């Protein structure tokens, strides 16, 4: 049996399954291929393949590993294994624990190396070789934007992992891409009222900003929202991504007359800059008659662990935290904790949600066709996934939900108990218009089913 | 006026006067030997002639053209080639390739972007190189790695590399250093043949008086960086100053 087939994009499994029973190779027109499948990597047989593309090497490997754990848990739950986790608390009841649309969920994994090239290579291999119908994961905005654009072209759905830059659902948004995680703007909007309450409205802020896109959007968001509460921005200084010792950036802070230091850093940068700032004794200083304070707009528990005791008492925002007591969070922490022995990180939470949301959308749409999924997710409101009532906004494919303001815990009881939730900022406070200037310049375009 | 004129050349290394007021006038088509005890400045002088070192003062003219201030490859293109004390060849290349390189330098000048045609198709150069190798009796070894050659063969190869450029002036820095008697005699014969077969000026630095007196038409004795005396071999042999400064030591 031999079959020679032409299609716009690669799926080896599907092509193999659609045998024409001819001895002579036949060239099949694109139109025919479309009639047959209708979209890229349409699952043939009893399984559907998801692509989990996370950093497994490089500095974010631990975060990637936690994401992978959550993915495996989500697959287990989707296939009816385990205790079902958040499937039980999810407001939609379309998922039945029999896979997605009756097809058993399988997955492939890849290493993004937190490099956009490597991430795309890995995603392409999942799409072209393994027939993945959806790609998800990642731990940086550079990777998210790069892979999102790829998925748009290839005609598969991209469910972003940890990406916080405004651009992902702003100027670089794509119809096939969805983000559950919050963003820089939301961090600013959530933090400002708490900062005002804690530190007053007469403050002078000094920003250290990672010198790349995410840093820029975060700086802009925090700056505009703190200036709105009356703070003055004394200085903003860009620091190289490859910087490891921030002392030369921290040392001049006190001289500037600032009394708050905002560290628009993530990952290793954040761990080092915060450690350095605390080393300089900034937190024991008095400036302008006030205690000197440090703010870290985006917190992650894994990074807080790296900074150790230095995070104590420092405010920041986060997408989710395991100490939340709503039913969804409790169910997730329980099934994750029982399987792996420690509580999940926010990265694990967001990717678990994304997997469930994708599966649920497919169930509700009754198809794996990306356009069907996009339709099912756009404007979809749900609850029970740990963040309260949540909306997947149609205009930019961004989730709108409550944002957590957290602070480093003074007396942690374990190595996971590093942050405490100070306030749950309600969703209304962090919602913005789709054409907000910080998100301008993008265009979702049309959903692309590929094929 | 000679082909190579060295006037008032001085060179100091820190506190050491390596060359002091060297004046030389080397006549075309002669074999001119420079002898002198160790540390007399012979090699330093040679290095100044090929652009490896820059003298502090003085001038060097070759064929009426100034030499100083030019880069080594420019000096070579003027027609000066040098054989080094330890043979400087392309150890990673075959014998044939070693000879091809100076052939190309002779034909194409210091740089030519000749990136597409194959070496093998350059028949004129190949012929010249093969002829040269047969002249020095090395054609049989043309595909051998030159790094694997014996020292004597390396020396011959280096001479072939110099001669194939048809230099007007050939500088030889102790061409028989470290050779066995038989090899030395072969080299003397080779140099005699070379001299006999073409118009060429040679400057030889040598310790071995047997070599010097077999080949040289004129001899300059250098001591402590300064020429002591210059004359024909016969006269040098009996010169008292030379005996005192050099031959006395060599005889001992």
């Amino acid at each position, binding site marked *: 049996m*031999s*079959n020679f*087939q*032409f299609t*716009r*994009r*690669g799926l*080896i*499994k599907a*092509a*193999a399954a659609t045998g024409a029973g001819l001895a002579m190779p036949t060239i099949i027109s694109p139109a025919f291929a479309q009639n047959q499948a209708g979209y890229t990597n349409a699952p043939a047989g009893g399984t559907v393949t998801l692509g989990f593309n996370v950093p497994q*090497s490089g500095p974010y*490997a631990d975060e990637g590993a936690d994401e*992978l754990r959550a993915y495996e848990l989500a697959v287990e739950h989707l296939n009816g294994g385990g205790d079902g986790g958040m499937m039980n608390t999810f407001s939609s009841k379309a998922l039945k624990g029999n896979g997605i649309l009756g097809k058993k969920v399988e997955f492939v994994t*890849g*290493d993004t190396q937190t*490099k*956009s*090239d*490597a991430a*795309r*290579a890995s995603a*392409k*291999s999942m799409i*072209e070789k393994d027939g993945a119908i959806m790609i998800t994961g990642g731990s940086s*905005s*550079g990777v998210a934007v*790069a892979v999102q654009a*790829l998925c748009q*072209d290839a005609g598969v759905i991209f469910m972003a992992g940890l990406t916080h*830059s405004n651009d992902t659902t702003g100027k670089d948004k794509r119809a096939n891409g969805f983000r559950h995680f919050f963003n820089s703007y939301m961090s600013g909007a959530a933090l400002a009222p708490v900062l005002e309450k804690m530190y007053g409205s007469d403050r002078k802020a000094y920003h250290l900003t990672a*010198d*790349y896109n995410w840093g820029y959007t975060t700086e802009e968001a925090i700056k505009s929202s703190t200036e709105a509460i009356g703070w003055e921005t004394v200085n903003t200084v860009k620091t*190289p*991504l490859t910087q490891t010792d921030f002392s030369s950036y921290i040392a001049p802070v006190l001289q500037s007359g600032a009394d708050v230091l905002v560290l628009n850093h993530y990952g290793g940068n954040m761990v080092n800059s915060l450690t350095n700032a605390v080393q300089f004794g900034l937190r024991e200083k008095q400036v302008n008659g006030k205690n000197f304070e440090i703010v870290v707009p985006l917190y992650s528990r894994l990074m807080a662990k790296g900074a150790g005791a230095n995070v104590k008492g420092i405010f920041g925002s986060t997408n989710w935290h395991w100490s939340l007591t709503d039913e969804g969070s409790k169910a997730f922490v329980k099934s994750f904790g029982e399987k792996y022995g420690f509580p999940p990180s926010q990265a694990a939470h967001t990717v678990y949600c994304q997997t469930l949301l994708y599966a649920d959308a497919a169930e509700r749409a009754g198809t794996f066709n990306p356009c069907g999924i996009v339709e099912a997710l756009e404007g979809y409101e749900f609850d029970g996934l740990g963040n309260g009532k949540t909306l997947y906004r149609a205009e930019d494919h961004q989730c709108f939900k409550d944002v957590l303001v957290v602070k480093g815990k003074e007396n942690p009881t374990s190595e996971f108990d590093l942050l405490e939730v100070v306030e749950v900022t309600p969703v209304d406070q962090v919602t913005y218009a789709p054409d907000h200037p910080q998100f301008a310049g993008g265009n979702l375009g049309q959903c692309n089913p590929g094929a | 006026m000679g082909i190579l004129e060295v006037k008032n050349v001085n060179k100091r290394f820190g506190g050491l006067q390596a060359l002091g007021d060297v004046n030389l006038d080397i006549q075309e088509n002669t074999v001119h030997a420079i002898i002198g005890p160790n540390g007399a400045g012979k090699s330093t002088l040679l290095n100044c002639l090929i652009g490896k070192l820059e003298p502090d003062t003085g001038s060097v003219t070759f064929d009426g053209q100034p030499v100083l201030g030019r*880069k080594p*490859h420019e000096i070579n293109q003027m027609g000066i080639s040098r054989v080094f004390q330890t043979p*400087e*060849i*392309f*150890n*990673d*290349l075959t014998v044939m*390739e070693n000879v*091809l*390189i100076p052939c*190309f*330098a*002779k034909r194409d*000048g210091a*740089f030519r972007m*000749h*990136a*597409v045609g*194959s*070496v*093998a198709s*350059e028949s004129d150069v190949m012929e010249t190189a093969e002829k040269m190798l047969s002249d020095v009796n090395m054609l049989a070894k043309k595909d051998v*790695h030159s790094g694997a050659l014996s020292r004597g063969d390396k020396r011959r190869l280096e001479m072939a*590399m110099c001669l194939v450029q048809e230099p007007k002036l050939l500088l030889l820095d102790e061409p028989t250093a470290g050779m066995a008697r038989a090899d030395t005699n072969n080299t003397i014969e080779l140099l005699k043949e070379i001299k006999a077969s073409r118009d060429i000026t040679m400057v030889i630095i040598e310790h071995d008086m047997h070599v010097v007196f077999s080949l040289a038409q004129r001899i300059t004795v250098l001591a402590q960086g300064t020429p002591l005396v210059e004359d024909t071999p016969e006269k040098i042999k009996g010169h008292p100053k030379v005996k005192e400064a050099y031959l006395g030591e060599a005889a001992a």
Partner: protein
Amino acid sequence: MLGLRKSDATLLLFVVAITILAPFILNPFPTNSAMAQFNGGYPDLMQRFVIFGIFAIGFNILFGLTGYLSFGHAAFLGVGSYAAIWMMKLLTMNVIPAIIISVIVAGLFSLVVGYISLRRSGIYFSILTLAFAQMSYSLAYSVLTPITGGETGLQPKNTDPRILDTLFGGGGAGGRANFFGLDMRDSYFWSVGDWSFVFNTGYYVAAILMIAAFYLSIRIFRSPFGLMLRAVKSNQQRMNYTGLNSRPYTLAAFVISGMYAGLAGGLLVAMDTQVGAERMFWTASGEVVLMAILGGAGTLIGPVLGAGFIKYFENIVSKINESILQGWFAALPDGLSDFMVAVIYPFIGKGWHLTLGLLFMLVVIFLPGGLVEGGQRIAALFRRKPKDNDGGMSAQATPAE
């Protein structure tokens, strides 16, 4: 044939055959078998094989022939990529202008960098090239964000002007990289029983360019110019005293290899329309060094093999995860299967860097001539008669210091 001597012509034919038949060679396992994991015959990886092959061939012209170890070649690849994507954004999604401009821009950039760096040799040269590349990377990632897109890189957007496409009615491929309407991502599939093979347009476009690049590199190796470059490596001093000016030779080699890198960068964009600054990070420059050495520096085919080897590792071995591993050993008794998984797991999947590092050390220690030397040793075992089938190889037998 084509002005090549017989052994070179054979080698070229061999490379042509391998590249054309790559879809078969790289997909030896039935699609649904457990071994399908090791199939590498999908468009993206095949494209990467040939593109990084071009990159490594070009690097080898500099390093393999002259011995000058550049630690900044990724900068030329990156610059080529940026030039190409801007061509696509501004003019047309047709890959031809993009590829041409990438070669030109990379050539100009390498001319500047080479002109300055080649004033020094040895490790000083390496550090100068490294410094230029790191500056390019740092600036592209940060202050040059308006031109380079910084962290998120550049992709074509529907808002791009694409003047030529607009002028000539958009072209047939609807905003996709194409060769006069032929979409780079179009593929033919051929299923034979359980096997399936994919023939991708982009791959063949890149493959033709790689064959051309390989052919050109053979010609350079065998040319008087190539001989001069080997002379530089062997004894630069003798070269100068032989009346040859080594500087323009090394600069020419540097620019040629920079243009090869630019071609590779342009092709990367042509196949996958996206550029990120990490492409220029020093580890990317290190990678091409590894490719050349692993395959066999100074040999013709070595760098291509090295590129294929490393890319295969990066894309295939890194994807093997624990559950796949457990699947393989499921047939074994429980304790034994756990043991096997525990032993192998650190070396595959996320541990692929470790394996690569170990392999790399082993090659440098035991096979200084790289995979080519390994192949020759094996061949010699069978033939009992070592054969010097590759002129460049001879230079490798006695490494120059």
